[in-house]
């Protein structure tokens, strides 16, 4: 299978992942490319301010919540086969089964994925997975923090994962051009919807923070490690043990 070949390629690339030396990652942050990352951050912020945020605000005015939910459902339904490939690669048969059930129910009862009866009627939630997560399960190191132009915060491991995931969705090979274009369009609109829905939070990080780059980096890494789980890092610092906290 294509995904496996790419996975092997991914593992080969990962041997080039940068690993911090002892004491080289204060607060769990390994960012040797900070200079170029900060330039990418400024670029991304400009793109957001001039294009993405205005488009998202207009979308928010045009689309009501029901339409946004439908777009979200369709985008998720299209993405699910790719997620299922990663469920399998992680050996997560339970997750694979739940997602298979969701695709079958939502594509039929949910009228081609417009609705999400799998969540609403039978309480079967999506078990998310992606190739960056798969690499983590296979024991690949996180690597250095990266901020990618247009794509945003990532790590060396997640950047490889994102690239491989361009190929992991079987629908890419089975859909013909009109449907494939619809799927791409829906995915883009869904991302714009996310920008609108979490607008205040994103604005507060990008525009109100004293150091939006550092906030973006910290929030991304913490949330991503939480999603992936199984990290041996202990996020529970104890302020009562800190000598300056007494």
């Amino acid at each position, binding site marked *: 299978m294509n995904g496996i070949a790419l996975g092997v390629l991914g593992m080969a690339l990962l041997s080039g992942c940068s690993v911090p030396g002892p004491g080289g990652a204060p607060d769990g942050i390994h960012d040797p490319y900070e200079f170029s990352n900060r330039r990418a951050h400024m670029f991304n912020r400009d793109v957001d301010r001039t294009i993405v945020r205005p488009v998202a605000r207009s979308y928010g005015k045009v689309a009501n*919540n029901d339409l946004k939910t439908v777009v979200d459902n369709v985008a998720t339904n299209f993405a699910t086969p790719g997620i299922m490939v990663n469920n399998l690669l992680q050996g997560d048969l339970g997750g694979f089964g739940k997602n298979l059930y969701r695709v079958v129910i939502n594509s039929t009862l949910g009228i081609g994925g417009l609705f999400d009866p799998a969540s609403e009627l039978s309480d079967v939630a999506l078990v998310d997975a992606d190739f960056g997560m798969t690499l983590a399960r296979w024991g690949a190191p996180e690597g250095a923090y990266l901020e990618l132009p247009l794509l945003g915060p990532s790590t060396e491991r997640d950047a490889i994962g994102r690239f491989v995931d361009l190929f992991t969705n079987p629908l890419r090979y089975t859909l013909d051009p009109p449907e494939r274009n619809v799927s791409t369009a829906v995915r883009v609109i869904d991302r714009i919807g996310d920008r609108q829905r979490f607008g205040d939070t994103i604005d*507060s990080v990008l525009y109100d923070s004293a150091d939006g780059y550092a*906030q973006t980096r*910290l*929030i991304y890494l913490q949330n991503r490690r939480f*999603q992936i789980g199984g990290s041996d890092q202990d*996020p529970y610092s104890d302020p*009562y043990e800190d000598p*300056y906290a007494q």
Partner: protein
Amino acid sequence: MRNNSSALSRRSVLAAGTAAALLTVLPQPGQAALSEAQARTLVDALVADINQVIASGKSESAMFTEFSRIFGRYSDVPTIARYTLGTDARGASPAQMAAFTKEFQRYISVKYGKRFREFIGGQIEVQGAKAVKSFIEVKSLAKLKGQAPFEVTFLVSDKGGRPLFFNMFIEGINMLLTERTEIGAMLDRRRGSIDGLIQDLKSAG
């Protein structure tokens, strides 16, 4: 012999009495000061208050006042504030610490109040409590319309004098660490001046 043994026993009774008296005064290592049930009770009350505010339909500024009251009542604001200052807290005078703590409470109430406002139409449900290290971890789920439920975790301790939460995680994002990074960046912008930081904090959040 008899006298001696009775003297001994009297002495040991006295010693035992003194020890017992001391034990009630000294902190006892190994004994959990705060129970999981107590921590859960605190978070239940906290979550009920937050749910009440987000369901109240009050104006934005009225909600921030409510959230400031909630932070003051349920969280150890002085400890959180001091932690976010890090080693810079060492150089701060008591008056600066007091002013910083006051502005910090307003700042986090507005900032996290905005996050909680996004929960309007949703509910937070407490799931369970578990002892971790020297404190209690209380997990809850935020259930919002049209969105997968996500985890909000509170860490509760009674080292601030009574059961209070001192950290909060929204989907793994740690409030203490996030705010220490932010306050650190604000201090850097003011070249380490705490008075400058306090000034900037008044308009932040």
